């Protein structure tokens, strides 16, 4: 696609633009350095288990299929499947943000649960492990699962 732009237009707009920042879209955020991301093993042995089970139970608690959750939260179905079924899967930051928005829990805390940021709140780590250990991924939420889920949501939901 050929675009005709005059030299005068370019220079006039460059003058108006000055040194302004121009970044747009989530991808234009500067990535944090790899060294700022702790290895998953330093945070939890398997953060994917905790995060996956959290997502699965929240979804079931809302009475949603994976397809419906993907649609409503604007997350890829394939990634939701991996989150729920693969303890080694490391979710994308955007996905965690979308799910945090959808489930109305703080982004920062859910990023910790997902193993994408260093834990700042040891309670979340400890409760996450306890939460995962108490659950079995069966079709219906048992009263015990519901109680565990609600207790963990209360921890994640606290700022």
């Amino acid at each position: 696609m050929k675009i005709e732009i005059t030299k005068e237009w370019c220079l006039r707009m460059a003058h108006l633009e000055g040194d302004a920042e121009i970044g747009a879209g989530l991808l234009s955020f500067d990535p944090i350095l790899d060294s700022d991301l702790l290895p998953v093993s330093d945070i939890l042995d398997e953060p994917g288990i905790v995060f996956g089970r959290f997502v699965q139970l929240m979804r079931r608690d809302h009475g949603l299929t994976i397809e419906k959750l993907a649609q409503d939260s604007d997350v890829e179905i394939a990634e939701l499947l991996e989150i729920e079924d693969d303890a080694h899967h490391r979710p994308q930051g955007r996905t965690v943000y979308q799910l945090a928005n959808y489930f109305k829990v703080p982004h920062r805390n859910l990023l910790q649960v997902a193993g994408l940021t260093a834990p700042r709140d040891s309670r979340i780590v400890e409760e996450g492990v306890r939460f995962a250990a108490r659950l079995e991924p069966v079709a219906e939420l048992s009263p015990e699962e519901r109680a565990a889920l609600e207790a963990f949501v209360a921890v994640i939901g606290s700022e």
Partner: protein
Amino acid sequence: MTVTVSPIVLFNVEFGEPVNAELWDAITEKQLADWEADWNAELLLALQRLNRAGVDRKQWPQSRHWNWRKKTECIQKMLAYPSFSIMCDGMTQGMMILDTPSKRCRIECQKGKNLVYIEYLENAPWNRKELLFDPPRFRGIGSILILAAIMLSKEEGFNGRIGLHSLPQANSFYANSCGMTDLGIDPNYQGLHYFEMTEQQVVAFIAKGSEL
């Protein structure tokens, strides 16, 4: 891949003079290689510079929990979308990825109509003053990429309508320099402001660069 190159001009800040450059209607392996090898290296140095200068981390450029690998993967996944890049001195100076089929206008007067949505727009690190590049190397990248998005919108029959989510520190550029309408914080998009340009604003934006 066939790439069409349009001649453009940037402003070289250090020498205070115009410099010939190119607008490519694609992001190719060349741009990705520049991004990985040069942009990332310069960004790393810039962050070290901010650190040494004692700049509070809260004042650093906006960052999110992408790591390099994830960001590279995301960009590569999006290369099926229309994209543009700006080349000068043999180096990539800016990149933009667009979404033409899936987004719709939100401003009342054009609500529901098609638009070109700017999924991603980024300047090279050495053109960014906030990274302590003083002076930044080139000016004008943002305006030319916005114009390219408008032209694609016209070609698609969308009359120049475009939309985007701005990084917080870029809100002023889109509101003032581009004259776009700020529809406020979008809670579904990590709290970024959503901006949209109407057909009338397109005319004003193009005219702005022609005023003497």
